């Protein structure tokens, strides 16, 4: 690929030297430190009554500290990080007149977005890995938990899913930077989309479910199941929901289904209580494969749209 190397190099240098990244990084370090600290303190109490606790290390990421767990934090604020890294990628170059200079060099046009996207993904990866390392380190210190090999694999899978998830938002940010000439408009659009998906969709899901099945509470089993199905289905519009579902089973080995409601008869109850052991990693991954694939697919689609729009844009208006 002609030109992708130099652009990637320059973008990385820009990221590392920018105030934006420094502030972002400080913020994230702070949050992960607080989370890890709270969780580390609570985890001892949580485990007090359990004889042989399993997967304690993973609890560092899933158990709620003061406000939220790290997994929840990434689900809600990860998008913001991706969008912040991407919302002015192209329109800044356009406004400063550097885009036409860049494109008049012997490089392919797509190298510009490819290089910027890859640099963003690299930043996201660095950020996520360092957060996980900070929490691991603090967990070792505060709660004395040592991760087992399976837990390390689970964290690795979790990291990969998280990076894909945030990269999706990075791609969305870059798309906005191509669609909107003004940086302010693009930032506003990014925030609007973030709010829509993080708060509005889950709200809308229950509204839709309530209107389709108005009397779920006293309508019997059928109605309850239908209500839950509709609500979960609508919620899946949001990449956030996809991410939460995809990571839930990975980071929590005792989770055996992604459904929110499980119907249990007397026999199932017995078998459930008897076989309450954790799933092996392979089975957990199998459980969430559809979500992971969908996540990758929507990332690819958002990038493909940016690509198509950028390639067709007239240079004159660039």
């Amino acid at each position: 690929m002609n030109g992708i190397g130099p652009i990637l190099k320059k973008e990385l240098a820009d990221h590392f030297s920018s105030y934006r990244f420094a502030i972002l990084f400080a913020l994230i370090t702070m949050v992960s430190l607080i989370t890890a600290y709270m969780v580390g303190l609570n985890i001892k109490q949580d485990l007090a009554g359990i004889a042989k606790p399993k997967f304690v290390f993973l609890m560092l990421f899933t158990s709620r500290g003061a406000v939220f767990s790290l997994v929840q934090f990434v689900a809600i604020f990860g998008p913001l990080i991706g969008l912040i890294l991407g919302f002015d990628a192209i329109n800044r170059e356009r406004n400063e007149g550097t885009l036409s200079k860049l494109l008049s060099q012997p490089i392919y046009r797509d190298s510009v977005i490819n290089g910027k996207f890859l640099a963003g993904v690299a930043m996201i990866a660095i950020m996520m890995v360092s957060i996980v390392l900070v929490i691991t380190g603090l967990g070792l210190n505060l709660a004395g938990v040592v991760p087992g090999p399976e837990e390390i694999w689970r964290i690795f899978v979790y990291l990969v899913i998280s990076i894909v998830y945030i990269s999706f938002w990075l791609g969305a940010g870059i798309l906005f930077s191509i669609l909107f000439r003004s940086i302010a408009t693009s930032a506003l659009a990014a925030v609007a989309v973030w709010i829509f998906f993080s708060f509005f969709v889950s709200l809308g899901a229950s509204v839709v479910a309530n209107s389709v099945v108005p009397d779920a509470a006293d309508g019997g089993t059928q109605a309850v199941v239908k209500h839950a199905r509709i609500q979960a289905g609508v919620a899946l519009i949001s990449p956030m929901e996809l991410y939460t579902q995809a990571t839930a089973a990975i980071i929590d080995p005792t989770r055996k289904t992604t459904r929110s409601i499980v119907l249990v008869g007397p026999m199932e109850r017995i078998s459930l209580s008897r076989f309450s052991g954790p799933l092996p990693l392979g089975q957990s991954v199998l459980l969430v494969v559809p979500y992971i694939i969908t996540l990758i697919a929507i990332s690819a689609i958002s990038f493909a749209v940016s690509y198509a729009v950028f390639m067709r844009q007239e240079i004159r208006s660039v």
Partner: protein
Amino acid sequence: MAGEAIIETEGLTKTYKGQVAVDDLSFQVAEGEIFGFLGPNGAGKTTTLLMLLGLTEPTRGRARVLGIDPTRHPIQVKGMIGYLPENLGFYGELNARQSLRFIADLNGLPVRTADARIDEALTVVGLESEPEKKIRAYSRGMRQRLGIAELLIKEPKVAFLDEPTLGLDPDGTQRMVALIEQLSRERKMTVVLSSHMLSMVQKMCHRVGIMIHGKMVGQGPVEKLAQEKLGVGTEQYTLEEIYMKYFREALP
């Protein structure tokens, strides 16, 4: 026109949403000459340059730059043409050397060659004295000269200069003119420049082309245009008179 045609177009046409920007344009530029591209704002000069660079696809017609079709092989053509855009932008947080290094990287130059060319280009444009100064702090004239330096890094055979003296003070303009003439003389660089500073164009360009409403209404050496438009035997003429005559005739 002396020498071989290095740029030639045939019926080059570009329409934007039904509006004709460049209309059936045919012209040639010979090797080593300085060609002045004149015309009112929005006449289609920049669009023509972009089509020659392969940055915009022509609606009809064809172009050849150094024998290559820029629409089909834009990468090759862009490697051989130095382009100074009208609204030249820079990464303000870099200094001149870093900026030139980035351009060299994009052109795939090996480090050694790049270093040598960067030093040379900075000397030629007279920016070698302050290598650490951020481009953000540059004056308009310095930026414009840095633009020329970025173009020289590629050692292009052809240079497209879109309004190279726009917004420069008299001293800056003179330096720019001297620089362009030097490049044309010493490196045999073919230069296509668009400008509204007609006295400057008259002084330095071997031939001019006047473009109005997307059409090339007149082209050739200034003397020839003077004969055609102002009559034979006119000793005292300026390009401005010729230009205005063309301009008035083109108006409905």
